[in-house]
């Protein structure tokens, strides 16, 4: 008795199906159905993609119950990990906040679509309820002896090897197609990092961090402009929001008491310093 079988056994995959599977079904089914409804009702594409990912994980767990551990893992790995991630990537690429428009372009289309959907549910459930199914055989024995992955490999590389080859060709074609579709011919030569750096400097704007407020000033509060080494207040050191509100203290105002203080210390300080400080 291997652990996988034990796991499936814990989920009661064997025949007769146990209560554990029933419990799991009644957890999984509402979760997947509600998440799938997210596709219908989510305004943002990201929310739809998220609920879709939840459906995928739910189905992956369902496959584990159905004696298909390989398929369950591949489902989560391929669908959640690659496909839905690709969806998310595209959603973020083409407008993150683009909420779907709620304008009905064809009159009454939504009503008709919902009626059709409900009709489809009725039709399918009716068909399933009318069908006579054989007694459940289960795949426990197959999973035990050659193993689930081995058995699938036998089938793929034996009975379905031609289909498998075709799928490989299809995947390569799809990859090529995606590259061709999203390819853009480069019209101008690629700008190198050196060129970019040269352009940045050539722009002439200040590239270093802006001076901090209050440097060399009487105050170091954010509303006090920094004084440059020559004593002039630096416009760039105060947030432009403060300047727009008119909350910037003038440099003269804060420098005025400085002159008094400096006159008291006139002896040790040289002329140049005093001049620079009081301006």
């Amino acid at each position, binding site marked *: *008795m*291997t*652990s*996988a*079988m*034990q*796991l499936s056994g814990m989920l009661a995959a064997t025949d007769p199906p146990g209560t554990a599977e029933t419990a799991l079904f009644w957890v999984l089914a509402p979760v997947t159905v509600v998440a799938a409804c997210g596709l219908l009702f989510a305004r*943002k594409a*990201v*929310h739809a993609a*998220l609920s879709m*990912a939840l459906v995928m*994980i739910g189905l*992956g767990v369902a496959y584990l119950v159905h004696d298909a*551990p*390989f398929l*369950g*893992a*591949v489902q*989560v*790995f391929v669908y*959640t*990990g*690659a496909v839905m*991630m*690709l969806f*998310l*990537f595209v959603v*973020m690429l083409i407008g*993150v906040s683009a909420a779907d428009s709620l304008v009905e372009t064809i009159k009454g289309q939504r009503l008709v679509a919902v009626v059709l959907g409900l009709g489809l549910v009725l039709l399918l459930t009716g068909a399933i309820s009318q069908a006579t199914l054989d007694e459940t055989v289960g795949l426990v024995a197959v*999973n*035990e002896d*050659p*193993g*689930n*992955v*081995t058995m699938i490999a036998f089938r793929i590389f034996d009975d379905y090897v031609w289909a498998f080859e075709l799928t490989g060709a299809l995947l390569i074609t799809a990859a090529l197609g995606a590259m061709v579709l999203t390819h853009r011919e480069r019209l101008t030569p690629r700008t190198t990092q050196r060129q970019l750096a040269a352009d940045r400097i050539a722009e002439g704007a200040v590239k270093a961090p802006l001076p901090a407020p209050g440097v060399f000033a009487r105050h170091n509060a954010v509303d006090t402009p920094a004084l440059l080494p020559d004593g002039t207040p630096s416009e760039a050191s105060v947030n432009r929001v403060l300047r727009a509100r008119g909350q910037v203290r003038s440099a003269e105002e804060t420098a005025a008491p400085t002159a008094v203080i400096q006159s008291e210390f006139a002896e040790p300080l040289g002329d140049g310093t005093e001049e620079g400080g009081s301006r």
Partner: protein
Amino acid sequence: MTMLAENPVADFSDDTIWVVLGKALFIFVFLVVGTILMIWAERRVVARMQSRPGPNRFGPFGLLQPLADGVKLILKEDITPRAVDRVVFVVAPIISGTAAFLAFSVIPFGPEARIPFTDIRTPLQLTDLPIALLFILAAAAVGVYGIVLGGWSSGSTYPLLGGLRSSAQVISYEIAMALALVSVFLYSGSMSTSAIVDAQASGGTAQLFGMTLDLPSWHAITLLPSFVIYCIAMVGETNRAPFDLPEAEGELVGGYHTEYSSTKFLLFFLAEYVNMFTVSAIATTLFLGGWRAPFPLSLWDGANHGWWPMLWFVLKVAIFMFCFIWLRGTLPRLRYDQFMALGWKWLIPAALGWTLVVAGLRATQQFESVSTQKVLIGVAAVIAALLVVVLFIDWLVSPEERRQPRQAAEPQAVDPFAGGYPVPPMPGQRLARTSGPVLVAQQVPAAGQDTTDEEQDSQPGEEARRG
């Protein structure tokens, strides 16, 4: 044709629900304590590498520092910015944190052992599946959602860029990682962790030129290219330096978790470290023989029984964790395009080619009953022939100058004061004069003529060449 057993070898049939819960609790505690120790070790080791003491105030050797930091982090204010998408903003760190712990449920810490003070014998592993490695990859794939959604839901530029970078990064590196794992699956005949560890018990023997050789058993040796590719990919997968582009501080402030604070940030932080433990544990299990004792220790019979293997396992994981710290202390961050080029142009083709080689070797061994010796000789011959052909083609197509070393170009003389203020010479230039602010219009002497002594001092090669 020999068929390798696909299903796990560990036997969990005696586990009661209490044993399972106990194991789960142990894994949780192991990872959280490990994370705390790892944060401490990282700060201390990086500090040593940078010649500073590191945290040493709180507890012996500063051991309690990460605990204090963690408590401080939890007690901080939990800020939710106004622009965020509230539900996703809360869910993202939870996804990240939960998925990080999932993978450890299939990692074997050791063989079957008796739980102390009871008669229960159980494998030191929470569970195992025939598709355990796929399960780990799936858990990692779900974990990425935390990062991407955290970046998106923050409603801010830098986190979004960090999230996008991360999704592209993980998708790219997961391919190389999975391809590196394929050759291990081929050689172990299973995707279950316990079976893979079992397959590395003994490498068997080979007859090579009349001698009987014990083949190495660890996949790190027999499948060295896979191991190298996995090690590179695992650093990319965990967003650690030098591949920490999703949270590059210098470019993106904090990356995807810029807007997060308090407990939510803690979850992201925890997930990053637990992911490091996970990839290290996978590398140990798949390539370094898992819990099996390394060579000199393995001569002692008891080394692979009871609780000892857990020690070897933890030590091997610790070595990988040290390498993570070492990398961070040593290497600068890659630029994003360099990183993607490494993944797509080097790792994935290399992994594909190697997988092809391994599959071919495996098929000849399994289906054609050719001895290992013949296969190895054949492979060596093919590689040698390819090497000769490649070298010949390289010699044929190489330009003239590569066959005859090019002579150094004559340095061009420039006037450093021509623009009004002095500039240093560019490579391949030499200074016509070295002092004097007065602009002189007449000179820029032609190369090789009337140079002064100072210039010849700066160009020793030129003197030698002329003489």
